[in-house]
């Protein structure tokens, strides 16, 4: 049986995921993805009616158990420097990143 996730498709996923992989890592991960898909195909054994609703959560949220939405109110963070201190590179309270690639849109 041919692998569902071919090397070409795998490389495309790696690019979309903003990753880069060593050859042995890529081989292992592609193998595991294909193995996992065999388990996922078990889902095809169940007759699922398209009218069956999808469940985003197991527990239904109703008026009985839902919170009221919080007012949309600006609250200053007590110490922004605690957050900025976590950034790998800053300058004058700006977070610094490498050159952002420029793409011309058609």
């Amino acid at each position, binding site marked *: 049986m041919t692998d569902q*996730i071919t090397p070409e*498709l*795998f490389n495309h*996923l*790696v690019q*979309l*995921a*903003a*990753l*880069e*992989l060593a050859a042995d*890592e890529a081989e*292992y*991960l592609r193998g*595991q*993805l294909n*193995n*996992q898909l*065999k*388990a*996922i*195909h*078990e*889902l*095809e*054994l*169940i007759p*699922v*009616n398209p009218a*069956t*609703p*999808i*469940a*985003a*959560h*197991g*527990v239904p*949220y109703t008026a*009985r*158990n*839902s*919170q*009221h*939405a*919080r007012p949309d109110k600006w609250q200053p963070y007590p*110490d922004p420097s*605690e*957050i900025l201190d*976590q*950034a*790998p*590179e800053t300058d004058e309270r700006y*977070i610094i*990143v*490498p*050159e*952002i*690639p420029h793409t011309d849109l058609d």
Partner: protein
Amino acid sequence: MQKLEYCDLPAHQLVELIKSREISALEVTESALRRIAEVDGRPGTISQESDDPSEAEGVHAFITLTAEAARLRAKDIDRQIAAGDDPGPLAGIPFTVKDIFCVQGTPSTAASRILANFVAPYTATPVQRLLEAGGVMLGKVNLDEFTYGSSNESSAFQPSPRNPWDTSRVPGGSSGGSAAAVAAGEGQLSIGTDTAGSVRQPAAFCGVVGVKPTYGRVSRYGLIAFGSSLDCPGPVARDVTDAALMLQTIAGVDPQDATTAAVPVPNYLSSLGRGVRGLRIGLSPDYFRITFPDPQTGEIQQAPIGEEIESAVLRAAGRLAELGADIVDGVPMPHTRYGIPAYFVISRVEAASNLHRFDGVKYGYRTPGDVADLSEMYRKSRAQGFGLQPKLRILMGMYVSAAQYSEQYYNRALRVRTLIRRDFDQAFDPQGPYRLDALLTPTTPTTAFPMANIYGDSVLMQYADQLTVPANHAGVPGISLPGGLDREGLPIGIQLLGPDYSEDMLFRIGRAYEKVTADAPWRLIRSKVLREVQL
């Protein structure tokens, strides 16, 4: 005669002793710190693994030990009590925190290189509530990287935790550090998280109590997210009373997490002793069959669960029947076997989405090398910062949610989730044919497996959660209780599952079971690590 230290006593007993000033919070904390020094060994770090053979004897639950902060906190609790104040229901109780929760001023690593240098600027709600109740935090404990695993072996912080009953075996996961710590006397309580069974499975493997509350019963604010529709913070404790005491503290609505339920939290402790007379407790044949991939072909197969585990559950049912419970056999839960396949899809989509935030820009790891541009910085930072398990989840999540595949995979999995929920709705429906108060099942398909036996086979490892994950899909609460030992002397876990917000019922049944088995020979056997410290 066994020598019991304060660190071996349950939290509910210690609180009384501390509040009555028979012992001090500091003595209790020192007792836990001594036990950690005796049994834990080197904490997990991201440096290279050591080849020191003595490491195979340690528990290695911790990543970060905050001993001095714990002593200061314990002294403060003692001062409050001396001044006539009540520090709260957990006054002076040592606890540990799975290192997936943010705690202000402490490293909060998710056991990943990508967050190894991250110091949280705020504290997660469940941890904050434990502290406000008088708890004493001992430190942060290890886990599978970003919680992705069932053995703790995927942690970037090695050595990974080991099982106190047999240190050549895994403690389970992903809350393996939590369960191992509680089992070894390294803190009475630990806060873990359960996305597919990550509290209940390690609790079963380590012979302690683990609770997955109803989804939304406990706030996820400050939890580094895995599967946002599945994640449930929950207690790991020595006994049911301690688990109830802890859930009482952390449960309830939180304005910082809109998914927390606006449902009053009952008094879990007051109903603990009500017994089980007249309660309807179900057994389902679908929880006595296990599913696994064939080692040669990878094809999915089914087989009866191991005889020792089945017997432990049936024995528990028999004891509960003696106490007056009605045992309802043959409850159909036909979609149980599809829990893992659906989880492979839903959890990966949610994980991939949650992991996009780790980009080397705002916090965490950034590649130290030269890069041509931002895109290369993203790729290198994520490649070097993430281990294999996060990468695997990102790739699968992106594949099954891609526009051309999402109906086939993601939407189908979400519909199967509806069917799993309906299994529980039917079992618990008060007007239905079964009218259960709880379902009694095994927690795990096996007892704790040897380290390195399964790690690397991501499919087989995932199937370790097959009996726990349906409750995460359905959102319903569950508890794992110690239910005996197998012939190798390893703990067997039994599980109770109940309707939404029925944790009080699960505690009540669990406590009745604990009382009726208090004199069982297996209850008197201590883990290998505890036997050695008590020689």
